[in-house]
């Protein structure tokens, strides 16, 4: 493994981790923008813009873009979160330069009106699709309730209304401000030649103008409100809990991640033994979500309507116990093993490695080897996790539920 990095004069950061023994390579543009960088009038624009980047440039139509990717056999896509928009491709090494060039071209899209109008329908279909997925819907709504007015509570997709109201002009304006080279990272991982990527970026990206880019940071410890809505067509109760977490920059993020696994991993966690193993809930998980300057723990629980009261009582006891007695050496050791396995196996694929590489730079401006992360996880003590519990009180949560009409 060899790490390379460089910064162009306009602020665009290039990073790469070369692994000549890999069969593939991966490339991505990590743009530091998402729904938290939006105001209400343009809510959903980051995600909509992600779609619009595939619609081409002055020289390429949307179909030509898709054809160009498909000619290389790339597995390519993009995703948008509250604070990042990532465009990526996993690819055979011989096509890496071609695909990187294509992404670089697409980072200066034409954002044509006619494409904007057709894509609006697709975005609204995506919003409708997630409305039919209560497990997703409940998390989205809980996040909004939790961050109550803080921009991290903005919906990534936006609403049908906000999307309807959005104009192509507003999107072009948002693009110009946010897709600045000094707000992006170009990352590569796997089997590729660094010099080719370097000169490609110098040729294609150097002229992009630098901008003053800001993001409202600020930690938020959550509203701790409780709410529930009913949908007549649902069969189960979907519950989301959200509480304060540490930020992506905080050294205790590794302890936070282990705490999430101890309380809410799919198997072998406290939630698992108390709720799933006993067949009181068919799903119960908790995870830690690191964010820029803030963070959350979020849980998802699904159960029958009849079991809701009992399940929430047990959840209360799980958090009370962990706040009173802390975690044990044994459960911390098991959590470490699980997280380390996941980390190592995921990073064996250039595509998996790319994501960690890109986000480490986005959040920390730091190159971290897998060994660095392994050592950090191994170094977490029971005392570290218990200190975090004391500091964050995970039992003090915001709660949102979606379920069928109550029978009583």
């Amino acid at each position: 493994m060899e790490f390379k990095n460089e910064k162009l004069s306009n602020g665009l950061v290039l990073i790469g981790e070369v692994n000549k023994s890999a069969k593939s390579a991966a490339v991505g543009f990590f743009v530091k923008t998402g729904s938290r960088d939006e105001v209400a009038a343009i809510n959903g624009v980051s995600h909509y813009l992600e779609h619009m980047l595939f619609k081409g440039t002055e020289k390429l139509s949307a179909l030509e873009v898709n054809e160009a990717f498909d000619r290389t056999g790339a597995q390519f896509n993009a995703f948008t979160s509250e604070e990042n928009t990532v465009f990526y491709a996993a690819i055979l090494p011989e096509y890496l330069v071609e695909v990187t060039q294509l992404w670089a071209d697409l980072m200066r899209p034409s954002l044509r009106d006619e494409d904007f109008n057709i894509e609006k329908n697709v975005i609204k279909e995506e919003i409708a699709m997630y409305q039919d997925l209560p497990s997703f819907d409940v998390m989205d709504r809980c996040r909004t309730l939790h961050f109550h007015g803080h921009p991290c509570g903005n919906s990534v997709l936006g609403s049908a209304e906000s999307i309807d109201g959005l104009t192509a002009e507003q999107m072009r304006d948002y693009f110009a401000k946010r897709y600045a080279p000094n707000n992006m990272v170009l990352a590569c991982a796997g089997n590729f030649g660094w010099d080719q990527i370097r000169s490609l970026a110098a040729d294609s990206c150097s002229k992009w103008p630098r901008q003053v880019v800001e993001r409202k940071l600020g930690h938020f410890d959550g509203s701790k409100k409780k709410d529930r809505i009913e949908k007549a067509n649902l069969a189960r109760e979907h519950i989301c809990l959200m509480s304060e977490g540490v930020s992506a920059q905080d050294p205790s993020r590794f302890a936070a991640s282990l705490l999430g696994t101890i309380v809410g991993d799919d198997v072998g966690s406290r939630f698992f033994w108390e709720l799933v193993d006993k067949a009181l809930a068919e799903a119960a998980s908790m995870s830690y979500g690191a964010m820029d300057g803030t963070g959350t723990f979020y849980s998802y629980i699904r159960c029958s309507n009849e079991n809701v009261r009992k399940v929430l009582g047990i959840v209360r006891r799980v958090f009370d116990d962990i706040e009173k007695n802390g975690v044990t050496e044994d459960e911390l050791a098991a959590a470490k093993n699980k997280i380390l396995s996941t980390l190592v196996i995921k990073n064996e694929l250039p595509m998996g490695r790319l994501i960690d590489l890109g986000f480490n730079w986005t959040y920390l401006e730091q190159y971290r080897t897998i060994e660095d992360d392994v050592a950090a996880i191994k170094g977490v003590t029971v005392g570290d996790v218990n200190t975090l519990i004391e500091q964050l009180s995970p039992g003090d949560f915001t709660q949102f539920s979606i379920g069928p009409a109550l029978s009583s």
Partner: protein
Amino acid sequence: MAEKFDKYVLKNQMVLLGEPMEAVESVAFGFMLPAGAAHLPEGCCGASSVIADWIFRGAGDKDSRQLSDALDGLGLLRGHSVGSSHMAIGAALEAGNLTEALDLHADIILRPSLKEDQFELARQLAIDDVLSLDDDPRHKVMLKLREQFYPSPLGRSALGEILELKALTVATSERIMRDNFNLSQTIFTVAGKYDFDAVCRQMEGLFEGEQQQGGQSIRLTPSAGQYTHIENDGAQVHIGLMTETVKPTDEDYYNARVAVSVLSGGMSARLFTEVREKRGLCYAIGARYHGLKEAAGIMCYAGTTPDKAQETFDCVVEEFNRLGDGISEEEIARAKVGLKSSLILQSESSSSRSGAIGSDHYILGRVRGLDEIKDRIDQTTVDSVLAFLRNNKFKDFTIVTIGPKRVTVK
């Protein structure tokens, strides 16, 4: 790409297959037990899911908690799934822990505790999973589609049916395990970093025994019907559509795969371009090849709001029907490179390879090398794909919709 596969057969005919991978520190393994949904007795739909949970609730000298802790202690990323033909139990892990993981899995498969109280919990969870499906119409529509498309019992839902799960007993489940955990028809696979000689010696010690009889063939009855609509007051109409095609063993298999790739391989493929890009009818749209040993189909999903459901459905059917009218050289070239590329990308993952070699062995009786698959894809041409489509016209579509509105099937 130099390839080497390992193979060893125990005296009881259990097959051990391996694929060494140089660039990884992990190993993935899997047991394919002939206890898939289609192999269950009538009236026991879902029993495999219950059993797959039950056997992890204590085994050998460990109770449920101790077993789980032991597995977690090895950092196992566990996975089990139930398909039409097999129940697959396996994991990916750091290579150094393989020996201990296999010892534990021998207990789970051969010496599960099978406590009655634990059975009730496993069964309740299986019932809850079926009930939860109503809140995931996109998943449900594809399960229903397979059920309706394949000759029964090939398309049975692995999740099961509520009434049959409620009627399932400890005794029936134990009998299914006796009949279906047949080591003589079990395939064990391992991929990644491992020592095959050591694995074979260990597996002999753990699983060697008398050859077992059994494994009667499945009696097939014709598939259920053409169009099923399930009313649901959701935001979208979820459309599933499936039509028959050649099996993985067929001479034309690679022509079929390329044809499906022209239809829905990448973002420049027909369905994405016509339905989403040009008309903005859908967000999620796609078709894929779905092959069992006994039958195969092309399955397609589209999700759209009620007002657009009919146009979406018509547009999808039109794309299937006009595929045989003509395909350009460019489209075939893109389809081929897409298939080859995804093959190579998947070959870097130990879990993917462990699954792939087992499936090849079961369906084809041998493991295909990457080079062989690449050559066969390369041999396809516009003419060969069009000839295949001419000889295998899409005749009947099995259709399932879930949502607030039906579609009209012409």
